[in-house]
């Protein structure tokens, strides 16, 4: 049997992010935070970018306390100036961006027949346009450095297969748009060795979702016995592991793809 050192070395060659600078948006809580923890554990220098600067700093401090490298910065992904400022800051601090995880999203639900235009617009500005603008900044820096890069967009199974009725039309549309950006950017920038992929979580516990305090009638295809064949909702850490796979050298020939971590929902 190979010993621990041999195994560790081989796994590091395949999955390690040592030396990589990773920007993760919306990373003060939920999936973004778990992704930040995970990336730091496998060697990345992590930028935790969040609307809530204090929370971002707390998340970064936790990682530092465990021996990882992380800083907390602020970003409002609905605001193009804020995004430009973030990436200028990252560029001056680190000199590069190797990985971007577009995780920041609007999780607000809105009843279909009552949804205001403002609610629709907010969803698109944060979730879709935010991903576009952050990706553009990252790609600019990646192209300039000439060392390739990896962008992982957090999408949703709802992008291809609705999960809830009545409350998610704007969210599912935004996530479908995010997947389209995945394909567009992957197609155009593959020659620069910039890979772009989407992770589609299925049912997942999330502080972001739990923070929405308005109550809605939860109904739809995902609700019902057997619709998640693995019989459970994912912990965000499980989805973070999928993000890590796509960001890592293991996936260096994977681009333009959507990868669903959904417990079998899409075959149920």
């Amino acid at each position, binding site marked *: 049997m190979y010993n621990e050192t041999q*195994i560790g070395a081989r796994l590091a060659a395949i999955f390690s992010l040592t030396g990589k600078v990773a920007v993760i948006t919306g990373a003060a809580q939920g999936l973004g935070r778990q992704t930040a923890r995970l990336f730091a554990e496998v060697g990345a220098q992590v930028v935790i970018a969040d609307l809530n600067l204090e929370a971002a700093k707390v998340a970064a401090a936790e990682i530092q306390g465990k021996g990882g490298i992380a800083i907390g910065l602020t970003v409002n992904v609905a605001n193009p100036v804020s995004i430009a400022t973030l990436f200028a800051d990252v560029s001056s601090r680190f000199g590069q961006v190797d990985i971007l995880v577009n995780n920041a999203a609007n999780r607000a639900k809105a009843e279909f027949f009552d949804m205001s235009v403002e609610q629709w617009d907010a969803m698109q500005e944060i979730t879709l346009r935010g991903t576009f603008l952050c990706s553009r900044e990252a790609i600019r820096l990646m192209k300039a450095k000439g060392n390739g890069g990896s962008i992982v967009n957090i999408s949703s199974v709802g992008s291809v297969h609705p999960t809830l009725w009545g409350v998610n039309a704007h969210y599912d549309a935004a996530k479908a748009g995010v997947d389209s950006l995945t394909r567009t950017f992957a197609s155009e920038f593959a020659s620069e060795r910039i890979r772009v992929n989407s992770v589609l979580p299925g049912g997942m516990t999330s502080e972001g979702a739990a923070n929405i305090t308005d109550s809605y009638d939860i109904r739809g295809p995902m609700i019902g016995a057997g619709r998640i064949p693995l019989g459970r909702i994912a912990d965000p850490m499980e989805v973070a592991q999928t993000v890590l796979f796509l960001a890592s*050298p293991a996936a260096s020939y994977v681009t333009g793809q959507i990868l669903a971590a959904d417990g079998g929902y899409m075959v149920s």
Partner: protein
Amino acid sequence: MNTEALQRLFGIEGKVAVITDSGGNSGSDVARVLAAAGAKVVVADSDSDRMQAIVDQIGATGGEGIAVATNVESEASVIALFDRVERVWGAPDIVANCAAMTNCRPLTEFTESAWDEVISLDLKSVFFCMREAIRHMKAAGRGGRIVNVTTMGSIHPVLNGNGAYGAARAGVSGLVRSAALDYAKDNILINNVMPGAVQGKVRLHPDTIARLERGELTGPGVDTERRRPLGWGTPEDIAAAVLYLVGPSGGYITGHGIVLDGGFLLS
């Protein structure tokens, strides 16, 4: 570098992994990488010399592996393989099916026997291997992971005249979705890895080799660099995707495929 985290996330130490192949496909690379990640590997192939070389190499570097001569197109041989694994190491935790062959010929010239050959190796053998794997995994009650290395050609043609191969591998995708649904409750997770341009990793029918050598193979994936923005993939790319799916971090993915195409599908 904290390799403890990597082992927790991706390590498969002590797991029993069966890798089936049909001589010269990606099985050897998958076996090496799964062994390097800590698994005890069973290499099951019809090519005894090649198999033994892999097992010897794994053993020489400190890993653990055995070779079991297997014809994946024979139901009896596949049943015997899994019975043998059970006797030696118990039920498998991981099964990676890597057997493959392709025969490129215009459909108008494709004979029934040529069709049956492709279906037998590229679809029916997967049925045999999956069925036996699941039988043993269910009986052991510990769950398990199954990955089939198929092809991007199951979604989009790569070569002209490759309809039989595309049909067989699309069939594997259908089988995987169905089995993933049916055996999720047993915690048996089943997925595909679908490589595109990875040189030399699918055995070609002798006829097809001849056509390749005469420069007669054509298709979207041939020659044009424009269709392969990230260049050629490596066998390690295939093995890494398999390792990810069969390890701890692949535990919420079932019924899906990871496409390794370097951007071909979007070119």
